[in-house]
């Protein structure tokens, strides 16, 4: 016993007791069977991993997630301000840094609000309870009628104690409890408000906002010379001439890893071109035939697993439909190619990176450098939007490998456009085969769904996931691919239908071989699976002579799912039996992302030029339920973006390659959406669920947008295209067929 200090654990447990003291070391050992606190508090339970309060009352919220342009930094600031009863501007948010924040793995899978937002919500609420209890103890009053306001605890008699006066030392180094005294959502002042994003002012005035903008004293510029194709071997490279070029500091060669460092950036670019010309490679890659992808995928060895079964899958109804849907490899296509800055000082490596996972990427880079992870620090700095695993981790590894050769000197590596396009790990190609039949009433009697796919994550992990480590003289092998387990799933994400069918079977054919480098891209397999399911639902509705919206509702029990469908239909002005104007079509689609995150329904109107086949999305109306909404404008921004990005994937995009090389290496060879194809209007309706858990919303729109547009195209021209992307040529061929 050290004297009469607050028992924070019993306060948090709700007893309000203020008397027992204990040593921090032993008091909080928790029963492993006890319920865990929510969100990422389960794995990082100390409150001061999430919230710190300075003596001057300044408040910092910490997150292990990386701001990628989704705007959650602002949302987290709202959450902390709300539960701590302070002004929004009084809170600062610190994002992913292996020296400062909790290990929250990757910023992926629409988990940020669910994991980190939930942790900050509960940590802030528990900190507030501790502050109240401590103020009551100091004022020697019962804690019941205290309140908090503007960063102070206020006693029933009006006396105020500022938060900064209540905290000292490691006062918040205490484990979170499983439940928290959360505020009543009806009293929220900051949560639920469309607070302007904190990062936008710098981004629209030329402030330093990205890792690309980092300028450390003495920083030099590096460029990597990548092999011409997968597996190419560097057989000769006379670097003498390159080393004499203006500004060149060093040529770095380690096996097949080749880079050049110069004082100025454009000097590095010129030296890179000279070095690329000097390098002699032997190419060995044998890439599959691009126009034969579906057959290639379905004929590769696969691990087959029935992931869902209901009723008797052998039952067949009166009318049976079958269809095959295919998706090509697709690029993340970040507008800013990947970039990183690294500096090695006294055997400690620091890397500033736009990776989505500072901790796992640190482990991979440490393994590559063959040093202990503790000697490597990764600090997340925003980059261009990534939408999944792009070149960020590879650029970080490049920078570390080069910086190791120049002790003390900060090295900035900027990938070139063709490197990002040619070497990023793409969203995997996929094939789905669907078969279903209708009973006499026009309802679905049985449902068969098979999906063929690679894994959807080759993120580091180990060094073998990094290009630089694969190319070193003592290389690390690419790790064996593993499927991402359900319920979230990878290639089988959203493969299990949310609808209720009396008889159903879903099979996942996991393909371990990866002829093209792939990894996680926004929504993973859900993009193609939802595209397939929701396209097929329309085909079945048509066969049943039913309205697509009514047909979906007939097969859906989930009340929140029904709500978003009805809201989107109503917002669109959907009417049963309606006909679109000539050469136009209406389409509808719905999904709940991963069957456990946000709900999203999208109705769209598409125009198809019958002479050229060119489709144009005219308007889209979405409804989304992401649980408790923290920042409605941020959520709308995400869904608007999801619709336009998914439209671009769906109408235009496919990675191209020949026998040995990737050939889509810039925006000419990999065209995406431009302003002439932007819709007239996009409307997003939010169904707020006050007090309900946050449901990840960043990826929920990808699948429904694709299927909604595909269904509208089919409605417009009376022909269905099932092979993504739905290019004007394919649509024209379908019209003419």
């Amino acid at each position, binding site marked *: 016993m050290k004297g009469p200090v607050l028992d924070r654990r019993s306060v948090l447990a709700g007893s309000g007791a203020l008397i027992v003291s204990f040593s921090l070391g032993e008091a909080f050992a928790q029963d492993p069977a006890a319920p865990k606190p929510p969100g990422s508090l389960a794995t990082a339970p100390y409150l001061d991993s999430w919230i710190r309060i300075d003596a001057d009352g300044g408040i910092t919220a910490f997150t292990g997630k990386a701001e990628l342009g989704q705007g959650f930094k602002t949302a987290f600031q709202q959450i902390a301000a709300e539960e701590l009863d302070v002004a929004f501007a009084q809170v600062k948010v610190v994002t992913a840094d292996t020296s400062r924040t909790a290990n929250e793995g990757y910023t992926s899978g629409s988990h940020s609000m669910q994991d980190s937002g939930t942790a900050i919500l509960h940590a802030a609420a528990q900190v507030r309870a501790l502050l109240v209890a401590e103020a009551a103890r100091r004022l020697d009053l019962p804690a019941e009628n205290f309140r908090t306001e503007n960063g102070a605890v206020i006693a029933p008699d009006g006396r105020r104690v500022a938060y900064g006066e209540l905290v000292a030392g490691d006062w918040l180094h205490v484990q979170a409890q499983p439940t928290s005294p959360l505020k009543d959502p009806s009293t929220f002042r900051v949560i639920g408000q469309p607070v302007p994003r904190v990062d*936008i002012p710098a981004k*629209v*005035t030329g*402030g330093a906002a990205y890792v690309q*903008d980092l300028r450390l004293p003495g920083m030099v510029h590096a460029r990597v010379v990548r092999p011409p194709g997968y597996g190419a071997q560097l057989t000769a490279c006379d670097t003498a001439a390159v080393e004499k070029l203006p500004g060149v500091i060093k040529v770095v060669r380690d096996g097949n890893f080749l880079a050049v460092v110069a004082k100025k950036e454009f000097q590095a*670019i010129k030296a890179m071109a000279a070095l690329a010309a000097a390098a002699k490679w032997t190419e060995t890659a044998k890439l599959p035939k691009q126009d034969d992808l579906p057959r290639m995928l379905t004929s590769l060895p696969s691990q087959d697993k029935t992931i869902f079964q209901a009723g008797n899958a052998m039952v067949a109804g009166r009318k049976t439909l079958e269809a095959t849907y295919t998706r090509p490899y697709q690029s993340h296509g970040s*507008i800013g190619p990947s970039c990183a800055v690294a500096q090695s000082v006294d055997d400690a490596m620091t890397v500033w990176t736009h990776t989505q996972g500072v901790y796992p990427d640190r482990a991979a880079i440490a393994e590559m450098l063959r040093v202990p992870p503790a000697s490597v620090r990764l600090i997340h700095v925003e980059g261009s939007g990534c939408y999944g695993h792009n070149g960020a981790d590879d650029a970080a590894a490049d920078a570390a490998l080069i910086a190791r050769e120049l002790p003390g000197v900060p090295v900035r590596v900027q990938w070139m456009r063709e490197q990002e396009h040619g070497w990023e790990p793409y969203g995997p190609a996929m094939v789905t085969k669907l078969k279903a039949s209708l009973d006499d009433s026009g309802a679905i009697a049985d449902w068969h769904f098979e999906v063929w796919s690679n894994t959807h994550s080759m993120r580091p992990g180990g060094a073998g996931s990094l290009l630089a480590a694969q190319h070193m003289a003592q290389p690390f092998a690419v790790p064996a691919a593993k499927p991402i387990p359900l319920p979230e799933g990878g290639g089988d994400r959203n493969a299990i239908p949310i609808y209720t069918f009396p008889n159903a079977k879903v099979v996942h054919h996991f393909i371990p071989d990866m002829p093209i480098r792939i990894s996680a891209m926004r929504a993973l397999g859900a993009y193609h699976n939802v595209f397939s399911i929701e396209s097929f639902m329309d085909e079945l509705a048509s066969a049943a002579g039913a309205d697509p919206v009514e047909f979906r509702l007939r097969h859906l029990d989930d009340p929140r799912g029904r709500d978003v469908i009805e809201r989107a239909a109503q917002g669109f002005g959907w009417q049963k039996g309606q006909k679109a104007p000539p050469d136009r079509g209406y389409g509808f689609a719905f999904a709940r992302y991963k069957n456990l995150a946000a709900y999203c329904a999208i109705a769209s109107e598409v125009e198809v030029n019958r002479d050229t086949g060119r489709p144009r999305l005219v308007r889209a109306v979405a409804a989304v339920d992401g649980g408790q909404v923290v920042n409605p404008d941020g959520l709308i921004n995400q869904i608007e973006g999801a619709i336009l*990005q998914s439209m671009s994937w769906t109408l235009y995009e496919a990675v191209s390659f020949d026998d040995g090389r990737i050939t889509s290496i810039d925006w000419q060879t990999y065209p995406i*959406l*431009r302003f002439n194809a932007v819709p007239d209007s996009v409307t997003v309706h939010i169904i707020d669920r006050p007090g309900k858990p946050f449901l990840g919303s960043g990826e929920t729109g990808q699948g429904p947008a694709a299927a909604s547009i595909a269904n509208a195209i089919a409605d417009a021209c009376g022909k269905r295209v099932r092979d993504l992307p739905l290019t004007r040529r394919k649509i024209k061929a379908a019209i003419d067929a």
Partner: protein
Amino acid sequence: MTTVTVNGRDHRVDAEPDTPLLYVLRDELGLNAAKFGCGLGQCGACTVIVDGKAVLSCVTPLLLVEGKQVTTLEGLGSVETPAPIQRAFIEEQAAQCGYCIAGMMMRAQALLQRNIRPSNDEIRAELMPHLCRCGTHMRILRAVHRAAHLMQTADASTGRRSTP
């Protein structure tokens, strides 16, 4: 040494004459707004204004801008005193990652400087060289309309800004 005029100030720059303006702005002058996106003139992220016209700085060598007036986003305004185009993008929250936005804003600024009342079709046509991957297009269009409105109002009220 080459002399370039950026945001109203002359700078003596020690860079090879074939150096693209983008690297002069970013590395010699420490400006952030113009972004490297492709180096090929395909995406618009590097757009700045030269003598009133939107120019792709990644494919414009230093040699060609000597003696000309270069304006970057930094030259239009600041967080404290934002220009109408900057206010408009903040008020419309017209960014996700924001990497493409500075280039978009410069082309829109050049458009509005020569035509303060562009139609929706004119704005779309003008922005054709620009790519946005986050899908922020609807907001970008709204922000350009808002900027036009702010500039019209400022004209009408002899420089005073309207409040939204």
